């Protein structure tokens, strides 16, 4: 192929005109968000749990026992269809672009933002048969001050998982990440909040501090930890199972999965740390674009019914902060009670990530990028 490197005058003019037209088109986008604004229904009255059609739920993959959906379908004569997302950004993007889903599974921070945008339905918790079984930790959460937007699905505490046949001298502090027995085989979670969060707790700052000086010191803490680290990864289950990690910052649900997959479950331990225990939650919310919000609310009530919650916990291995779910999880990990972190017992030690100011969020991200890039 021969390329003619010379452009003649006419071609140049044509290209220039095309470029100008393109720039004009881009100028028309100024001030627009990536997603077009969606049509919202006029009425914003609280919805009621009553069957009003088939539902489409939008969930993480492999996160709910299919039998729970099947029995709901049979009992109420409606279809429960499911599609999956693999990260929350993708879920929120589709929702903002007008995707019509009946139930979504956001974290508190995403639920807060979606509500600020007016994208979530309100409902009265008292209208649900099983709301009284919800852990008091979820009364009037900061993202849902009137408890009218969300029902907790699962929760997870962040702590440290370790191989007790290799590592000794664990003290129940976040400083255990740099236990010399684990040097070169320690992993930090590849999650900017979990990583900066534990460093903040070690330094005695507020979990969610956005003070640049404090974050600078936490960055140094993480850089020091990096000397001990073998990797920065969220594949904690795989890293522990295949022997790559002997100390791993981890969520308590992961350690349940690890112990299910190995021949020597007694060698794997888990601890929460005295400086503070970050608690994460996946919530169930009903988007404003739902086709059948009544059925959706009824389905949420069905999911937290004690027998269904227990069945679901036995299936996916994550604790559910409702009656039935709590007991099922305790029985699942009865030989290693440290995994069963009881929310009510955490008191002030139980903390949640909250970065609702975008500048704070950007500063945290910048700090984490500096840790990873250097």
């Amino acid at each position, binding site marked *: 192929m021969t390329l003619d490197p010379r452009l003649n005058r006419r071609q140049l003019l044509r290209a220039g005109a095309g470029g100008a037209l393109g720039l004009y*088109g881009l100028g028309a986008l*100024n001030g627009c968000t990536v997603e077009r604004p969606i049509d919202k229904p006029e009425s914003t009255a609280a919805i009621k749990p009553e069957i009003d059609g088939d539902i489409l739920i939008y969930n993480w993959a492999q996160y709910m026992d299919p039998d729970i959906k099947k029995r709901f379908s049979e009992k109420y004569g409606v279809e429960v269809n499911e599609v999956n997302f693999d990260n929350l950004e993708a879920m929120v993007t589709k929702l*903002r672009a007008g995707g019509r889903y009946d139930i979504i599974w956001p974290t508190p921070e995403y639920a807060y933002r979606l509500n600020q945008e007016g994208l979530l339905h309100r409902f009265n918790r008292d209208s649900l048969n099983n709301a009284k079984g919800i852990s008091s930790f979820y009364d009037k959460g900061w993202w849902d001050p009137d408890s009218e937007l969300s029902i907790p699905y699962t929760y997870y505490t962040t702590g440290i998982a370790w191989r007790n046949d290799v590592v000794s001298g664990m003290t129940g502090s976040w400083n255990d990440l740099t236990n010399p027995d684990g040097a070169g085989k320690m992993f930090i979670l590849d999650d900017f909040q979990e990583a900066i969060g534990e460093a903040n707790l070690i330094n005695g700052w507020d979990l969610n501090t956005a003070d640049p000086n404090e974050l600078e010191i936490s960055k140094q803490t993480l850089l020091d930890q990096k000397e001990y680290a073998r990797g920065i990864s969220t594949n904690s289950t795989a890293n522990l199972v*295949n*022997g790559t990690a002997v100390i791993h910052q981890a969520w308590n649900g992961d350690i349940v999965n690890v112990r299910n997959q190995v021949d020597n479950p007694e060698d794997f331990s888990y601890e929460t740390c005295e400086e503070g225990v970050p608690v994460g939650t996946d919530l169930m919310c009903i988007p404003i674009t739902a086709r059948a919000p009544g059925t959706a609310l009824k389905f949420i009530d069905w999911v937290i019914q004690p027998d269904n919650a227990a069945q679901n916990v036995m299936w996916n291995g994550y604790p559910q902060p409702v009656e039935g779910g709590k007991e099922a999880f305790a029985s699942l990990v009865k030989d290693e009670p440290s995994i069963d972190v009881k929310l009510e017992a955490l008191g002030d030690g139980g903390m949640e990530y909250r970065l609702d100011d975008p500048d704070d969020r950007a500063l945290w991200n910048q700090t984490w*990028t500096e840790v*990873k890039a250097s």
Partner: protein
Amino acid sequence: MPGVAGDVSSKGFWSRFLLPGGVWLLLLFVVPICLVLALSFGYTDDLGRAVYSFGLENYQDAFDPLYIPVLLRSIGFAVATAAFCLLLGYPIAYYIARYGGRRKHILIALLVIPFFVNYLVRTYAWVALLADEGLVNSALKDLGLTETGIQFVNTPYAVVGGLVYGYLVFMILPIYASLERMDGSLIEAGKDLFGTPSRVFMHVTLPQTKQGILAGCVLVFLPAVGDFVSAQLLGGPDTYMVGNLIQDQFFAASNWPFGSALTVVMMLFLSIWMLGYLRSAAREARDPVAAGGV
């Protein structure tokens, strides 16, 4: 192509068939790239939504010295990947082209078959194979070759290994094509002139396949610079690449505008290399002798 039938009427006939492909490229390639370009001047609003605008802050951030080591590391990994691919791929291409005989097409098919499986899935398989208590280390321990096992994963070597595995076929195919095109009698002529195998290779075969090597290097180097899978799954604390940085902006930091600016900068940077290759190819086509050919 001079000398090939190229009269006006047949050119017009064939131009019509460009329309579907042209529209496809315009809508699904040019327009999205323009949107990335537009978004790179944008910002993130209070609710984490990406908004189009006309600011240069993202580009200021993209040229922060903090990212220079990340870029240098990515280029280093990609150069090493292209070099290993060339060393491994050339003999394979040479063997198949010269001695493949009737099995040529089967051998090429065998090279391509693994690519029916997604790169991400294949890299996960590598993690399982090479982990400290994975299959490879278990086998080595059983054979008594090592007592404690060897740490393969979470190293820069593993990242380059994953990249080589991922992109090797893009080196082999263009070299194979250029060897196929080459006139075999040139090698015989070289031997008739009492050339040793290595001298014939250096003075006849290698110059004849130079364009294939260049094409292979470009096809391996460009995607390797922007790769994120290998570093994410096989890397350690010090293997962060540009691809990981960009991916983090979209999926973790909710900062699409900055991610877009980084993407644009990387595309411009890679285009420079691409232009260099195109110029060399054009020079070769105009004047093969001066460019080192026969």
